[in-house]
């Protein structure tokens, strides 16, 4: 009986305790800065090095480049960039290897949709996904960081 009474005491005490429920859709959830949400791609910064597509464990990134329209400049610019969020696992490896921080994480995570087709995001969408961009990307896998120290 004593154990049962103790248990009843705990629940009774909790009756008046502070509640932890978060009124989620009404009050948006603020994620910490490091949160890994839907990527933002900056088409200006991208040098079409293909690192992100190569490191992606699920092969959800496809990208193509085209010669720079400005004949003065060398290199390539981004032509298309698609992420298939059906299979993206938001593992952060693409931002980790990006040498120019062209692909970065944001703090947005709401992707639910009625159609699978909506989960296929193209360059325009990703380029415009500029809200809550992560400040510190810590791209330790990028070539200039040499996979060496973190900061």
């Amino acid at each position, binding site marked *: 009986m004593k154990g049962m009474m103790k248990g009843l005491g705990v629940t009774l005490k909790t009756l008046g305790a502070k509640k932890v429920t978060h009124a989620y859709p009404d009050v948006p959830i603020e994620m910490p800065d490091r949160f890994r949400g839907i990527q933002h791609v900056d088409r200006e910064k991208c*040098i*079409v*090095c*293909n*690192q992100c*597509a*190569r490191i992606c464990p699920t*092969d959800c*990134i*496809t*990208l*193509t*480049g085209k010669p720079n329209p400005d004949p003065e400049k*060398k*290199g*390539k610019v981004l032509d298309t960039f698609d992420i298939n969020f059906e299979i993206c696992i938001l593992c952060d490896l693409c931002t980790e290897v990006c040498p120019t921080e062209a692909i970065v994480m944001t703090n947005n995570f709401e992707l639910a949709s009625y159609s699978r087709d909506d989960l296929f995001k193209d360059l325009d969408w990703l380029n415009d996904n500029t809200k809550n961009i992560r400040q510190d990307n810590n791209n330790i896998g990028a*070539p*200039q960081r*040499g*996979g060496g120290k973190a900061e």
Partner: protein
Amino acid sequence: MSEEIKKDGETAGTEPTAQPEDNRSEAAPETAPSEPQTEPAPAASAEEAAAPSEPAQAAEPAASTAEPAAEGGEAAPPRRKETEEEKAARRKAALEAREAAKAGAAQAKAAEAAAPAASSGDGGEPAAPPKPPSPNQPRLDRAVQLLKELVAEDAVEEASLNELNDDLPTLVVKNERWPAAAVLFRDHEELGCRYLRNVSGVDYETYMEVVYYPLNMERRETYCVKVRTDRENPSVPSVTPVWETANWNEREIYDLLGIDFPGHPNMTRIMMPDDWVGHPLRKDYVPLDPEV
């Protein structure tokens, strides 16, 4: 872990002056000497045949380092159908010269370190001179001796210490002798491995191997026992009667690698559906639908 390798890991960072070209060419010796002695000749030669093609491809993009990014950008994004060598080459192409030098040096050193490690595991022969004998050497010798005495003279095919795994005594036991050897491992008071840690199956393309890790809990001693079988009709006697642990592990290996375990009480598939065709972890397994 061998001290040499650790040391080399450190020194690699402090020697960034090595020439990149040299390091590229070292990719070939890297694979060749590190071939463990436990592998038979066909596998090794296949590996060596593949190895030279790698630096050849790697050298080309590395030469045009001026714009490494362009290389990948114009092609369609890489798919899995690319060969391993191509992927490795692409990855290298993306490196800057300085990083390449560092990495190359580290790999070369690691390969050098691995070479004596592999050669030392040669049938219980004395290890390479500069290395002090491992404290596990007597344990290995004793296990070999016991198996030879109490099971059969030909029970042990190979015995070595696995340097990559804290000098783990590693024995290759003859397939037909394995049930008796397993009982010995469990019941003999000097071995006393009542606990079976893990069972893995490996497809080495020329043969199959089942790797057992019996453990003596009182003395905290682990052994690694390998049993080999041919690839056409792979079959290893079941040790489920000896260690219950092996039961589902063997079923899993049967399911994924197709190795039969005669003596197992219920040799059926465990992960894949019962009507599945093929054994997915085999190296020659072709998925029905490559896109999935």
